[in-house]
């Protein structure tokens, strides 16, 4: 089962946990309807949409309201530390949480107590805290964008805001930044770097690149990185290896983006609507390639 941990931008939302589903472009969790704009709700919606095609078990979530003060995140961290050691989840994805090294480390200790240890995916604020704590290697997958890979590559930076000038991200320097992130032990076992060209990488080097279809108008659309993380999480939960899931997720997200026919003013829900179709098509294409390779 996939479990997503994150926040929603509404202080009125208490700590909620449970199975989540999509209904008329809204997430439904414990009877509450949560709008899908960007952030963790976009990740969850993408995971649910892809999971429907993959035949996954319902996605489970721990969500709390936090508008950036960190109060909700700390409440959630405390809850996780108390309850995770008794839980058994296959895949856990951590997302928009207030970066806090101390709480990150306590959550990681709780995760290490889980049996079996889940596949761990981190993005956004929780990935920042994981890198800053020096524990990046405990994770199976990080999904940074081009700016965030520069942050991971800068061993001094505590946040992307402070990435030093000589490391600042440029799309054509991504392979070099990936190498540097691994040299300083600031990357997860596998990386999916999202950008004009997507990279799947490990300590051994670049495993795959994906640059088609290229839809320039997606760059300003908030939440398109969140959807990739949601799709890869669903694919890993379906039993696909992290590396293969990263490759497929990048393809699915690009195709869904193409089908959304976006402008820079498009909202991410328009892309999410096309994830089931894109997932089905990419899986079919992959299966066909696999069968034709085996037939030769």
């Amino acid at each position: 089962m996939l479990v997503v941990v994150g926040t929603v931008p509404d202080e009125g939302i208490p700590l909620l946990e449970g199975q989540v589903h999509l209904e008329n472009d809204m997430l439904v969790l414990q009877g509450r309807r949560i709008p899908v704009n960007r952030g963790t709700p976009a990740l969850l919606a993408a995971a649910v949409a892809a999971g429907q095609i993959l035949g996954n078990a319902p996605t489970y979530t721990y969500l709390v309201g936090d508008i950036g003060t960190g109060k909700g995140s700390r409440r959630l961290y405390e809850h996780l530390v108390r309850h995770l050691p008794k839980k058994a989840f296959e895949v856990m994805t951590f997302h928009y949480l207030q970066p806090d090294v101390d709480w990150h480390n306590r959550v990681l200790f709780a995760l290490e107590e889980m049996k079996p240890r889940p596949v761990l995916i981190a993005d956004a604020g929780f990935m920042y805290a994981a890198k800053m704590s020096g524990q990046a290697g405990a994770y199976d997958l990080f999904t940074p964008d081009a700016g965030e890979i520069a942050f991971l590559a800068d061993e001094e930076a505590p946040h992307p805001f402070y990435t030093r000038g000589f490391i600042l991200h440029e799309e054509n320097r991504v392979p070099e930044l990936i190498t540097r992130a691994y040299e300083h032990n600031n990357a997860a076992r596998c990386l999916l770097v999202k950008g004009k060209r997507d990279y799947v990488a490990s300590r051994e080097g670049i495993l795959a690149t994906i640059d088609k279809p290229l839809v320039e108008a997606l760059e300003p659309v908030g939440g398109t990185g969140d959807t990739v993380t949601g799709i890869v999480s669903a694919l890993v939960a379906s039993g696909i290896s992290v590396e293969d899931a990263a490759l497929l997720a990048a393809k699915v997200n690009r195709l869904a983006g193409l089908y959304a026919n976006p402008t820079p003013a498009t909202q991410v829900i328009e892309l999410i609507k096309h994830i089931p179709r894109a997932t089905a098509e990419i899986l079919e294409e992959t299966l066909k390639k696999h069968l034709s390779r085996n037939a030769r």
Partner: protein
Amino acid sequence: MSFLTFLKKKRPLKDQQADRGILVFENTSEVIRAENALKAEGWDVKVKGPPPEIRTGCDLVIEFPLIEELNVLRALEGAGVEPVKVVPVWSALLEPVSLFHTKDFGEYLMIRAANMKLTVDKKTMTIVNVSGGGCPDVPFLAQEMVGKPLSDAPSPRAIGHTLCGYALQLAYEEMQRQCLSS
């Protein structure tokens, strides 16, 4: 502007860097409030990243001329936002990202500052998207800003709380400079 304020603004930068201190606050929201209060009184303070020994996570500190500690603290007390500690600077402070990247999409203009991107419709000057970032105020800021005119939208400085919010503020200021200054 008072005479004293004028003097504070004109103080040579070199003197301020010679003997620096940092103001540490409970959270980033307080840093932003304190920066607003000090700048409103004419202090040439700078928001920076804390030295490693006092970093906790999503942190900002305010760098100020240490010699002016009492005056600065008095100003902050008057503004109702007091630091949890004042520390002399021993190690290098981190400089925030200061480069902007502007991308023209024809009808839309996108500006990136650090990890945050802000996009406006050039014809209507409406904010159409906010992207990037990883702190929990990013979805909140997007919710509050998208769909509003650039001139009327709440500023990230006013409603944001984290470093991502601060980076969005820089993009917002640059967008205003490029689009609204003429």
